[in-house]
């Protein structure tokens, strides 16, 4: 069963078209990586999916076309987008960030439980619950961004370059966390990542974007073994 089915996705900024009819899908419970060079359209794809920018084509979430829905509606329907860089609300405390993440959640009990749960998983966030998100380290902010996104209990989590600006050890922790979320809770993840090595290690399948279109698709295993991919993206 596909959780996300995208067909003919076209988008851009003003008169500049970045995506030219993208087709791809994310299976329920899968980690799918979007790979590609700078400017290939990876970030634009996520922005088009979350409704941050306008797009043409169809975007089916659980079989329902959400392309006409506003960004806020899509968030409520279950698309969680962690944008590149600072995915947190920097002028708000850790606690407020989690509350904002749960903005669409009606049940106070669920909000309380989830908050406690995330504090359990990230004790450092619990220690810093009254600090401003902007004062946290890069790794802590990325953890907070993920916790914030998952407070809404989304159907699919979209991460844009989560490793950006992080030390390698912290990036390892982060990817281990994503993998754990996927395995233990069946969270479907769409992962945009420069570091193809890292992404292909946890992804089940991947798409390689080039000039706003899909150049190549396959299982993570196939792509790892593909000689041209190894040359272009894996550096060996």
């Amino acid at each position, binding site marked *: 069963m596909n959780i996300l089915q995208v067909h003919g996705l076209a988008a851009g900024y003003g008169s500049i078209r970045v995506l030219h009819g993208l087709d791809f899908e994310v299976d329920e419970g899968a980690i799918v990586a979007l790979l590609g060079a700078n400017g290939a359209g990876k970030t634009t794809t996520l922005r088009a999916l979350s409704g941050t920018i306008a797009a043409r084509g169809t975007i089916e979430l659980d079989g329902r076309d959400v392309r006409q829905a506003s960004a*806020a509606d899509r968030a409520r329907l279950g698309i969680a987008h962690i944008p590149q860089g600072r995915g947190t609300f920097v002028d708000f405390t850790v606690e407020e960030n989690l509350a904002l993440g749960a903005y669409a959640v009606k049940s106070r009990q669920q909000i309380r439980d989830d908050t406690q749960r995330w504090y359990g998983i990230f004790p450092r966030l619990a220690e810093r619950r009254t600090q401003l998100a902007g004062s946290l380290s890069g790794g802590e902010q990325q953890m907070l961004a993920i916790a914030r996104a998952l407070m809404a209990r989304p159907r699919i989590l979209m991460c844009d370059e989560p490793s950006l600006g992080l030390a390698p050890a912290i990036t390892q922790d982060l990817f281990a966390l994503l993998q754990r979320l996927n395995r233990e809770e069946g969270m479907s993840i769409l992962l945009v990542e420069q570091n193809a090595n890292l992404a292909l290690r946890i992804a089940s399948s991947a798409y390689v974007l080039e000039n706003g279109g899909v150049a190549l698709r396959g299982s993570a295993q196939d792509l790892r073994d593909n000689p041209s991919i190894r040359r272009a993206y894996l550096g060996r």
Partner: protein
Amino acid sequence: MQLFFQQIIEGLSSGAIYAALALALVMIYRATRIVNFAQGEMGTFTVYLAWQLDQWGVPFAFSLIVAGALSFVLGILVFRLTIRPVLSASESTIVNICIGLFIGFEALSLWIWGADTHPFPRLFSDRIWTFWGVRLSASNVGTLATLCVLAAGLILMFRFTRIGLAMRASAAEREKSPLVGIEVETMLMLGWGLAAVFGFIAAVLVAPSLFLSPPMMVAVVIYALAAATLGGWDSPAGAIVGGLLIGVAESLGATYLRFIGSELKVGIPFALMAVVLLVRPQGLFGRTAVIRV
């Protein structure tokens, strides 16, 4: 010394009114980066509504409540009809629209109710207490208490409610807020509605002493602009302190600097503002924008 304290009380009392209107200005500025010059004129218009209801025999307290509710609707309508379509337009477009609203609302009041001034019922009793020769009227106390209630209400709402948090988020992070399901435009709209209520309250507080007339709030909005600038445009606390300071400076200045006289006293707050801004360009409570790269 009695005169000094007397002037401080009078100053705080009129300063509370400037502060209420400055709060409205700051609320809108934080959310939309727009300085709504027309806030005072919108307030005057809604006070006319209250006055009209009162004239028609509606009980005064009830007239105020109805007009307060109508001002909330008016703020929302003004945002929907005039601001939302140009939200991403250039600054000068928006400034022009606010000037248009300023002139438009004053003209509207003039057209409907004429240029005559009308007495407006007093809001508080006419009791006066005297402490060591300093007179403290119920109106002084009531005005300051109103400001306290407004400020406390704002703090409670922004700190502790879900909608307040969403309004702050929309103001601070217009791009990211939709990603958690916040409809930013709805929040901006609520902000404009709320600001219009604050403008209404400021105008109601002013009306009994200035009398109701279409340009009643012109001087007040100028003081409120000065208060917001003095306190820092992104700080509600600054708006309150700025408003009170300007009220006190105005009344002390007019009393002790006789050569200035009552015609020129409008310049005193601006002299104060100029001096503060020389030292702190971001205002007393404002934050300098720090951009991390």
